[in-house]
């Protein structure tokens, strides 16, 4: 980990609220010149701390009415085919995130679908048919809030 100072933290806080702020706008808020703000942003990107942007979209308006989190347990047999499972699951467009976890489940997936019927289709045709899938638990997302975190 590389040292970052309070100004860097302030930049991270501002950009995690609005990533479209220009270095001139950042500089103005923090009392820095535009080139100085720009260099700091580039440095935070170089360190891998600023890791791209996330678009905030109205999913329902775009026709994606449901988001479901799936906990997936691999069957004992499936553990040999871990690589196959991982390749196949990450290739499904409706599966937005795949995390390998330790605990009750082996994988945690975020799945978007048009509605519950569409989700059922993705689940039955694309996910449950993958090699090694054992128990699955689904929880339908009702609300989501991202916090600034310990910056």
């Amino acid at each position, binding site marked *: 980990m590389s040292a970052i100072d309070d100004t860097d933290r302030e930049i991270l806080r501002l950009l995690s609220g609005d990533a*479209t702020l220009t270095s001139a706008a950042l500089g103005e808020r923090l009392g820095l010149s535009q080139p100085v703000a720009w260099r700091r942003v580039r440095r935070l990107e170089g360190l*891998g701390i600023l890791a791209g*942007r*996330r678009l905030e979209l109205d999913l329902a308006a775009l026709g994606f009415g449901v988001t479901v989190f799936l906990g997936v347990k691999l069957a004992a047999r499936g553990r040999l085919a871990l690589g196959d499972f991982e390749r196949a699951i990450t290739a499904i*467009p409706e599966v*937005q995130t795949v995390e390998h976890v330790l605990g009750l489940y082996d994988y945690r997936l975020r799945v978007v679908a048009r509605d519950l019927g569409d989700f059922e289709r993705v689940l039955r045709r694309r996910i449950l048919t993958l090699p090694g899938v054992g128990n699955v638990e689904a*929880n*339908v997302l009702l609300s989501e809030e991202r916090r600034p975190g310990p910056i």
Partner: protein
Amino acid sequence: MLDDTDRRLLRHLQNDPAATVSALASRAGVTPALAARRFDRMRSRGILKGQRARIDWHALGFEVEVSLRFTIDKADPRAFDAFISAAREVPEVVEIQTFLGRVDVRLSLVARDLAHYHRIYRERILTLPHIAEIEALMQVAVLKTDERLPL
């Protein structure tokens, strides 16, 4: 609502959120003026709500990420609200989600190491109000974090 041009522009924006409007326009095969108009319209309709910087907690020195899944004791009708406002006060909480399913609320928590996690868990998490049950999933690896929609 959205036509093919809007969808095409959104797809390109999802692939490269930092791109300029004119770059996105040329990739989508439309004039910059039309692209700017369409993005403005999607913003004013609330479809495009903004962009947030993604922060890599690992790169900031937070080595541990845990998904804490709670069942809430619903005897008190204000239990959810009380739990969520208390969870917002914990700086290491980076995500709060509510669900329909076996899990009521999920918190995503980052910590510098296991000792730090242990301390937050004991001092800040176990003391949250109205907890009936807690389960923890520890993140081992992230295989996909692509939150692009299959538009």
